[in-house]
């Protein structure tokens, strides 16, 4: 009976009964419009400046960026980065962008396609969008992008194409709506740098429960 009581309290407070047909239509229209509120100037720059801003903000949030010109350079870049840390296994989703790459030429890493598990050291995923205003990545759950890969491993490596960088969050929502046919996926992740906590004496420590390192493989596709 909670529901009825809550609604009747709210309506009594608003000094009306059920909302009028006009009011309901106005609310419905507002929900369908997806009107943007004020968008800061910094998110409204031309695209090449958004790319520069994305890099600046992501680095400030303690992400690492490896700049590549072509996605085919990803396996070698991953191998080199992981070898430096003596990591030889990489967990990836069965994302076609990743499976289409030549992983035979990088024998020092074992690539496994599955969801994330406790004990995983490194994962590789793609990112659906980059948001320049705060250097934020957007990923969403689907068969080829399980959410556990974004949180369980110590290292999260993410492929992002420069062309997928947008200025404000609002553009990312529009991109998401058009990619998912208007149905929200189970999980949408906005990720800005690696995990951290300042719960002990307000002293910032990196790597709380999520990845300790976030490596963005930024592809310019310039050739």
């Amino acid at each position, binding site marked *: *009976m*909670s529901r009825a*009581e*809550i609604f009747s*309290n*709210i309506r009594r*407070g608003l000094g009306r009964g*059920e*909302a009028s047909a006009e*009011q309901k239509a106005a*609310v*419905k229209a507002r*929900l369908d*419009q*997806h*009107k*943007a*509120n004020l968008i*800061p100037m910094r998110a409204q720059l031309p695209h090449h400046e958004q790319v520069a801003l994305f890099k600046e903000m992501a680095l*400030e*949030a303690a992400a690492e960026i490896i700049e590549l010109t072509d996605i085919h350079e990803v396996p070698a870049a991953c191998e080199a980065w992981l070898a430096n840390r003596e990591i030889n296994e990489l967990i990836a989703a069965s994302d076609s962008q990743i499976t289409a790459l030549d992983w035979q030429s990088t024998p020092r890493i074992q690539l496994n396609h599955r969801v994330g598990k*406790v004990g995983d050291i490194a994962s590789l995923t793609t990112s659906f969008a980059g948001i320049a205003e*705060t*250097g*934020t990545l957007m990923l969403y*759950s*689907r*068969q080829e992008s*399980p*959410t556990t890969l974004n*949180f*369980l491993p110590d290292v999260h490596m993410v492929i992002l194409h420069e062309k997928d960088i947008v200025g404000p*969050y*609002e553009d990312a*929502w529009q991109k998401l709506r058009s990619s998912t046919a208007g*149905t*929200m*996926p*189970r*999980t*949408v*992740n*906005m*990720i*800005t740098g690696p*995990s*951290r*906590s*300042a*719960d*002990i*004496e*307000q*002293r910032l*420590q990196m*790597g*709380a*429960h*999520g*990845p300790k390192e976030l490596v963005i493989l930024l592809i310019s596709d310039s050739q």
Partner: protein
Amino acid sequence: MQIESPAFKENARIALHDVDLQKALGNLKAGFPTKRAAAIERMPEFDSLRDEAMQLKNHIIENLDLYLEQFEENVTKQGGHVHWARTSDDACKTILDICRQVGAKTVTKGKSMVSEEVNLNEYLEANGVTPVETDLGEYILQLRGDHPSHIIAPAIHLNLEDVTEAFHEHHGRPRSSDPAVLMQEAREMLREKFVAADVGITGANFCVAETGSTIIVTNEGNGDLTQTLPKTHIVITSIEKVVPTLEDMTLFQRLLARSATGQEFTVYNTLSTGPRRADDQDGPENFHVVLVDNGRSEMVGSEFQDMLRCIRCSACMNHCPVYGSVGGHSYGWVYPGPMGSVLTPKMIGIEKAGLLPNASTFCGKCESVCPVRIPLPKLMRHWREDEFSKHLSPKAARWGLGGWAFFAKRPSLYRLLSKGANRALRLMAGKKGRVTKLPLAGGWTDWRDMPAPSGKTFMEQYKQQQR
């Protein structure tokens, strides 16, 4: 959590003499306000965003029933379930029922102040379900049998040594006084708990009506593991958190982290919409949202309606000189600081919480930093009026106010009296210009001197300058 708000004065006295607490509170004062100021410096549109956010919240409240209906409809459409809880008891029972349906033995928990408000942990424990807090600060508190003293930095009242001891005692590992080592220890201890849990409970910063989504905003990633790994995800949140669209949520996202920790953006902003989809490889199979009322619906249309705009950023307490001196536990319940002084009387009653809205100098700092421009001093004054009209305020205060009112309504008497008092104070102050002891005002002069009036009264000066 036990209600200790009636003991505010005693709590505050103890807190002021607690050397360790004062050291810990120093970390807060040096941290959040400075970082917030720096973040706002970089966002020239910040004040305009605040104006828009205030207007949007007002629009939401005017249509609260409609947005809640839309939210419920869309959660259901995505395969989730919405439960309505009028009281704390309703909320706890609903969650226990869900836990029992899925045969849950342990639940992991992301940080949620609403779960503190309804006292969920104690209820679950009493009914055979073990809750495990996974936010680092909350985890430390749970080990110590302690409660949050701040809404976003729950363990702000503790020092490193306290964490060292708690971890050593419960983890059975050698003592460490390196925060990095301690955090790694918590990470390792909690990994298995995340996987073993049958249910994950999180809060929500906002509920999006358009999509039926809830969002959590965290830096650690514990909330994400909490809501991804178990078979059932329960969101406990409150009815005023609903926003119309993703774009509207974004307006508040731009304000929240900057006002709270001074970050440009919190590390993880995660939307949850319904359970996992048919071809998803991970994620929960069940998705429940428990919407708690606990007096909020009665605030609509009341003199406290503006408080429903609150987005729980904590800027008001981070900037409050009273909070900064006595800490969150002195307030004696879940929500401390200025926002708590407005909310707590609504939730536990003005009879028990009457001291809280009085524990303010009305300096106005809280209102000046509030991202949704809640007139916190005005709302605290409403509680003082309420307390007065219910004859709950102490006799001395009532007589004092009565006496003042008597003179204030008789200007010539008032002027005569203030002239006399002015002269008397100056006489008492002597050459030092400061009064060190004053009858009836020991609460002031025991701790500091009262500066003597500098000369003539305001009215005397006014008359002089009129000529």
